[in-house]
């Protein structure tokens, strides 16, 4: 056992692991077997109805099917939503990660076993005193890991409650020491067509890029994220390292990061470039500013018990207004949507 792992286990009186006691190590063989079973189940559903078929609710078994993951212990933090957490099965099979396909079931189908998460390099550069390239293990040592239970609001009108693991991005920002000229932070996702079948489509201009104002990036809520549900991030959820910005629509939280650059001017963001009238640079969750194609006033909470459970009202800044509204004092949020 490596000293680091031993250390992690020693540290781990494992609050997170108690919450989510998933099996620890999953080898490739299990992955292949279980994905075969999952495929068979899907085929059954497809036979029943090709059109209505989507991954079965009974995906529990496929948790063995996912790329090797390891437990990640984290201390509790003050940022813990008390709402019912989204089921792991739902949070890991229903999300957008266009690099692996445009259907929300595509990432879970295509990312595990394709996305090579080890070794991984994250370049941090631009207007900083100490540009640096980090491996994931370097990053994990940089600051104590916290479990943050955040609401996640997708721009499409659905939401989840997810126990992420990571630390404030500000810890990394401090480490690289931005220059006075740095005003924005640009994030870049991996774009490798060998690993990511979705790159064949020209839905977005690859690589996926996102951006925050420096003060947004420095906000304590902005999370540099390495895990969820007590374990390292799965490929489909943006492993091994991603961003989580809980008061903005989900697409601002870029996945599988390979580069973080400090820049002077507002960086281009993929969705903003592809449909500027629909997705603004800020993209703060705002029930008062409708998307062109649908209202943002309400949301469908994934995992609500009944099929006929009503939608929930969407909260300003996704319920984090108290913490973040100071960032936007005096700004017209209709204009800067």
């Amino acid at each position, binding site marked *: 056992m490596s000293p680091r792992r031993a250390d992690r286990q020693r540290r781990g009186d494992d609050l997170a692991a108690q919450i989510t006691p998933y099996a620890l190590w999953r080898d490739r063989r299990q992955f292949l077997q279980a994905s075969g079973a999952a495929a068979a189940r899907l085929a059954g*559903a497809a036979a*029943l*109805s090709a059109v209505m078929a*989507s991954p079965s609710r009974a995906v529990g078994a496929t948790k063995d099917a996912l790329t090797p993951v390891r437990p990640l212990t984290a201390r509790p933090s003050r940022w813990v939503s008390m709402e019912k957490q989204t*089921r792991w099965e739902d949070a890991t099979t229903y999300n957008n990660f266009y690099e692996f396909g445009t259907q929300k079931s595509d990432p879970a189908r295509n990312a595990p076993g394709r996305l090579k998460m080890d070794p991984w390099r994250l370049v941090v550069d631009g207007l900083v005193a100490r540009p640096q390239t980090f491996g994931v293990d370097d990053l994990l040592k940089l600051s104590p890991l916290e479990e943050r239970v955040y609401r996640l609001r997708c721009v499409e009108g659905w939401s989840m409650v997810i126990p992420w693991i990571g630390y404030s991005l500000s810890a990394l920002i401090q480490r690289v020491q931005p220059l006075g000229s740095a005003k924005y932070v640009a994030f870049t996702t991996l774009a490798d067509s060998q690993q990511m079948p979705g790159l064949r489509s020209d839905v977005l201009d690859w690589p996926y890029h996102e951006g925050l104002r420096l003060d947004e990036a420095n906000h304590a809520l902005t999370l540099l994220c390495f895990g969820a549900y007590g374990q390292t991030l799965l490929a489909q959820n943006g492993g091994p390292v991603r961003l989580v910005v809980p008061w903005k629509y989900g697409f601002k939280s870029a996945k599988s990061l390979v580069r973080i650059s400090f820049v002077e001017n507002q960086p281009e963001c993929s969705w903003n470039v592809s449909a500027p009238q*629909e997705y603004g640079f800020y993209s703060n969750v705002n029930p008062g500013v409708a998307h062109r194609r*649908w209202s943002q006033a309400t949301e*469908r909470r994934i995992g609500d018990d009944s099929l006929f459970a009503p*939608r929930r009202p969407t909260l300003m800044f996704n319920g984090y207004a108290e913490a973040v509204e100071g960032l936007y004092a005096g700004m017209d949020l209709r204009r800067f949507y």
Partner: protein
Amino acid sequence: MHRDSAPNGLWWALFLWASLPGWALVVQAMGGFGLGPNPQESIIRGFGQVSLVLLLWVYAMPLWARWAGGQVLAARRAMGLWTFAYTAVHFLAYLQFEHDRVLAAVWSDIWQRPFVSVGLIGLFLLAALAVTSNRLAMRQLGARWKRLHRAIHLIVILSLVHFFLHKMGKNDYGEVVVYAGLFLGIALLKALPMAAKLPSRPSSAGAASARFPHTPES
């Protein structure tokens, strides 16, 4: 279908085939499986897709009749009514799951969002065809019936526009292109009746048109 023909085996086969997505939904909803983490969205979109597929199928029925024989057309009214039924459920699911039946919200949606208004116009037209699909209405409308039912061209186009506008939000046009291609292909083949009527189409064609003299081949 425009005459009094008793349902035959083919009619029943097509009828049951068209009812399958409806049964699948009932089984899935009651069994709580197969609809994914967002079942409400799966239901809305699933029925939208079933409606579009069936609509194109009905649209293409005169072609099937050319190749497979006129008795296919006997099932056209039933197929059309299934299409309307699925479209209506698609709309009802939208009312329930997108707006919790708050009509004020639906009303503002209709005016603010072109993809909703376009879809709704298509639904109204489809409803008009459904209520005039019986023999009484055919008799009453006479020649106008045929003109009215040519609205299927418009309905298909509106459905594709509806789907396109919906997909525009995510820049994801793959499926739209497939359906639009199918539509263009079908429309083109239907517009070329001569090609099909020449030698490659022997006696069965004559039999078909003799059996269904009022079948619009438009």
